[in-house]
């Protein structure tokens, strides 16, 4: 396993309902990332289809593995890179049950998928109308260490990131489609999740306009001490590369030992109180 590697944050806009165009852009950015020696490139939430596709989601969703993941797998093998991207996933057992998923593939093929657990259904968001939530966190062994996958609104729930960390992920990726008015929340929470878990957080947001919503970009790599070590532009397509060095975790974990100080009995109470809210 590599202790040190480069990660590329591919902050793109997507053409809604146009998988072919989006796959082409993913290929283009993955190649650019490879040129800059990145070993992992991350794309935004639902980057295969665009975010605001509403009822068309049933036309666009695919099984995993499926035609689109096979194209991405081939790409990852060809250029020798790990790729994380988002897509609507059709359940294997039903005809129209869809998950909002993140997919991780590597140079040796498919590695894992994560189904978004927290589906925002308020304000401009209507995800519960379309998606079934996932029931487990995602943390996957790779040549680049154990990588955790989370999606957008998950970041508002420290339990998800915590559990992903406790599964052993030291790099937790959060792919996102966040419109402009939410910027402050994400900028605060991504840093908080990195510090409280002594982990790297790679946040990759969409840019562009969909249905009047403007996605703000601002993708970033945050170190375990909360420092932002790579940051993309706001509002514009951008590819930035940052470095992960897992050796950075140890001094932080000693300095602020949040993992040592975890109190399991609190979680029991949290469960009870949540059930009776």
């Amino acid at each position, binding site marked *: 396993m590599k202790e040190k590697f480069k990660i590329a944050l591919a902050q793109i806009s997507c053409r*809604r*309902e146009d998988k072919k165009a989006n796959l082409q852009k993913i290929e283009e950015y993955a190649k650019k990332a490879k040129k800059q020696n990145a070993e992992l490139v991350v794309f935004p939430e639902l980057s295969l289809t*665009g975010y*605001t*596709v*509403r*009822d*068309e989601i049933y036309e666009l969703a695919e099984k995993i593995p499926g035609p689109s993941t096979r194209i991405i797998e081939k790409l990852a093998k060809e250029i020798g890179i790990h790729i994380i991207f988002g897509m609507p996933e059709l359940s294997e057992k039903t005809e129209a049950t869809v998950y909002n998923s993140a997919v991780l593939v590597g140079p040796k093929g498919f590695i894992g998928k994560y189904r978004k657990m927290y589906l925002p259904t308020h304000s401009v968001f*209507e995800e519960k*109308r379309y998606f079934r939530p996932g029931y487990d966190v995602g943390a996957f062994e790779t040549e680049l260490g154990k990588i955790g996958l989370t999606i957008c609104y998950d970041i508002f729930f420290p339990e998800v990131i915590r559990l992903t960390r406790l599964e052993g992920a030291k790099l937790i990726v959060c792919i996102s489609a966040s419109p*402009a008015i939410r910027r402050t929340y994400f900028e605060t929470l991504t840093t908080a999740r990195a510090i409280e878990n002594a982990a790297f957080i790679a946040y990759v947001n969409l840019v*562009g*306009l*969909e*249905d*009047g919503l*403007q996605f703000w970009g601002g993708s970033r790599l945050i170190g375990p001490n909360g420092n932002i070590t790579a940051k993309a532009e706001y*509002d514009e397509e951008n590819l930035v590369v940052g470095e992960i060095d897992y050796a950075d975790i140890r001094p932080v974990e000693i300095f602020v030992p949040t993992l040592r100080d975890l109190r399991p009995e609190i979680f029991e109470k949290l469960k009870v109180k949540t059930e009776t809210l």
Partner: protein
Amino acid sequence: MNLTPSVLDLNWAEAETKIKRFIKDYVENSKAKGIVLGLSGGIDSSTAAALSALAIGGKKVLGLLMPEKETYNKRDIEDAKLVAEKFGLKTEIIDITPALEAIQKTIPAFNPEDKMCKGNLKARIRMVYLYYYANRLNLIVCGSSDKSETMIGYFTKWGDAAADIAPLMDLYKTQVRKLAEHIGLPREIAQKPSSPSLWPGQMAEEEIGIKYETLDLILYGLEHFMKTEEIARQLGLEKVTVDKVKNRWKSMEHKRRMPLTTKIQYRTAGFDFRLPHHSMTH
């Protein structure tokens, strides 16, 4: 939350950028050749015109000045021309009086005393001209409705609110005034009292019965889920005044939506057909 005027402060540079990006993106994706809009010389249409010009270039923006005999106001025409000149828009002047009179003559039920019906007719005639130009020249119709008017329904249904895009619709009137000054519209236009000019002497604040400074704070409170008691307390108003605004806010939803139908079949427009909105001409 403290309902002080400062809650309405925005980062004006950011607001300008977002609106320009929205306009440019829409026009480009729709493959239209530009924008057409009604230019009255008032604050909203002047701001919409200026932002359109800043977004896609004045040469691609056509402002239609559509005066009419009864409400003709020289200053408004001059202000509209001033905005057009400053932001490099193309303009055309169309006197709508002959069209208005011709239509009035063919309406058996026409009553010249009913100024509201007659006024709305003017707004709808202007819409007809705008869409003619849009169709003929492959342009997007840019509306200039602001959030204050939209939320209390202070506009003509299928008249001035009829448009393909409404870039100012999420800014209250007092915010539009500030944005207008930020982008360099003359102060006399930015601060000019608002009037729909549907009949002579019609002034918005008089007709609505409340100053925009107060109305906008009430609407801001309602937007942020505040109770009317609390809004009234903070603004030193009678609760009944705030309730009146809230009732108007609620009862005008019919003007903000597509026509209601009753559900009969599997999927229905306006109910459960939820399709993505793609930028299109008409």
